[in-house]
């Protein structure tokens, strides 16, 4: 096979209407994630910094290894793997042993991306597959949350972070609970103000909802993100939880709490919008977002786990080929209702 002539540029998906190249978009995504990342490091100190570094490093290493093994050109230049790693790191609890961080990053990229052929071909969001793998493999470590804003966070790391590879972490200090598990298991509600500003326990990058929204708004303003997906998710979560709350305020949580707690913001803005694993049409994206929002509410309210954003998005990823099949863009020249060839 010969390489195509340089005059006509042929790209695989994502076919982005904006006309930006992959690396421009990816660079801007990094930019949009910067405030969240900075806040994560500010809140959790060295532990978060180490977690994020190892997350990015393991993903990059896995990708590099896969490229070497399958004789593909290295894809490090386009930032995509670095973003996967960063997003993955932001979903992890601070204080997670670094070797577990590396295992998840490696498996996420290998399982969900490299084996499927690399960038643009993954059926699932690799960052979330990595997280889901670690969650299933090390459920105890993944639900032990370290409190933020400790006095010595910039000079020392929790003992669990530096656990020797393959060994069990020992949690020396106090662990805190996330707002969602406090609500689910103890019936305590956290202040919405604290949630929005990030003064609660949780994963490194999911605590401060406002900064995530800021990053998302930046990407939307630059026309680099499909705003329909997060908007649909937020709308469904807000309406569903508002109606439940209206039915029985004792049992169900108020909508603002549901919106700003847990990984919903990070998931809706940066994970569900993965261009490859989400539907192609606008209507499809709305449906996809609505499905994810619905699943989040179902799992959080009636399921066994306090948080369901990760599972909801993965199932959304699995359904998105079907959404694309039901709602196909009208092929130029065909009549409405006629299936695309």
């Amino acid at each position, binding site marked *: 096979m010969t390489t195509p002539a340089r005059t006509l540029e042929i790209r695989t998906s994502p076919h982005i209407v904006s006309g930006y190249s992959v690396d421009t978009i990816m660079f801007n995504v990094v930019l949009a994630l910067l405030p969240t990342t900075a806040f994560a490091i500010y809140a959790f100190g060295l532990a978060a910094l180490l977690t994020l570094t190892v997350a990015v490093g393991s993903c990059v290493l896995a990708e590099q290894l896969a490229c070497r093994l399958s004789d593909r050109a290295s894809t490090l230049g386009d930032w995509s793997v670095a973003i996967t790693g960063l997003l993955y790191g932001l979903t992890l609890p601070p204080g997670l042993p670094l070797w577990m961080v590396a295992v998840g990053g490696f498996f996420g990229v290998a399982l969900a991306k490299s084996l499927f052929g690399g960038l643009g071909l993954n059926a699932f969001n690799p960052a979330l597959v990595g997280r889901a793998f670690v969650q299933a493999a090390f459920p105890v470590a993944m639900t032990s949350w370290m409190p933020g804003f400790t006095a010595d966070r910039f000079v020392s790391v929790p003992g669990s972070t530096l656990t020797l590879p393959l060994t069990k972490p020992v949690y020396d200090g106090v662990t805190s609970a996330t707002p969602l598990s406090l609500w689910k298991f103890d019936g305590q509600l956290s202040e919405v103000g604290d949630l929005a500003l990030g003064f609660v326990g949780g994963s490194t990058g999911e605590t401060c909802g406002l900064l995530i929204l800021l990053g998302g708004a930046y990407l939307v303003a630059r026309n680099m993100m499909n705003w329909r997906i997060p908007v649909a998710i937020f709308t469904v979560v807000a309406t569903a939880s508002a109606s439940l709350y209206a039915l029985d305020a004792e049992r169900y949580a108020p909508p603002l709490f549901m919106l700003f707690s847990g990984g919903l913001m990070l998931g809706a803005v940066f994970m569900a919008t993965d261009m490859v694993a989400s539907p192609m049409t606008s209507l499809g994206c709305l449906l996809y977002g609505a499905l994810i929002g619905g699943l989040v509410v179902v799992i959080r309210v009636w399921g066994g786990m306090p948080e369901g954003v990760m599972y909801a998005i*993965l199932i959304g990823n699995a359904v998105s080929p079907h959404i694309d099949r039901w709602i196909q863009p009208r092929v130029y020249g065909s009549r409405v209702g006629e299936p695309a060839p």
Partner: protein
Amino acid sequence: MTDDPLWSVFVNACLINNFVLAYFLGICPFLGVSGKLATAGRMGGAVTFVMLVSSICAYGINHALIALDAPYLRLISFIAVIASTVQLVEMFIKKVSPALFRALGIFLPLITTNCAILGLALFQTNKGYDFAQCIAYALGAGAGFSLALVLMAGLREKLELARIPDVVRGTALSLLLAGILSISFMGFAGLGG
């Protein structure tokens, strides 16, 4: 004996303990027929139907065998009944709707050796479900099987054009996808409680 409500039996069989993704039943058709979405949907429908019929039969047989005090004939009669149910269903569909028969034709014999059907009959007996619960269980298992099959088919069709390395193509890829689907379905755990 259990007194689980019907919806809980259904959700349990369909999502939490999905027959394919959590119990590994019906893996052969799951891997074999999930290449094309259209056939996957039909297969799911056929399996659900056979599940419903054989679940009812198994319920009756089990009670008859308990009355006869001959539990050792359970397996042999279950499998005989499933095989003949499939045959009867095949003949019935051929008579009533030749079009449907042509669409389903090749899958029906496959269903006989689908362990999901026998598994359903055995599990409902072990769990001691009553008649209504058996129906809910069969419908849930069928819906879960179809859901897994259809999701898988969609993913495989999407990946058909991807540059998948040769080593991964085929069964290994399907198993990887099934593993990721299975992890995603873990999110439903606890729903029935």
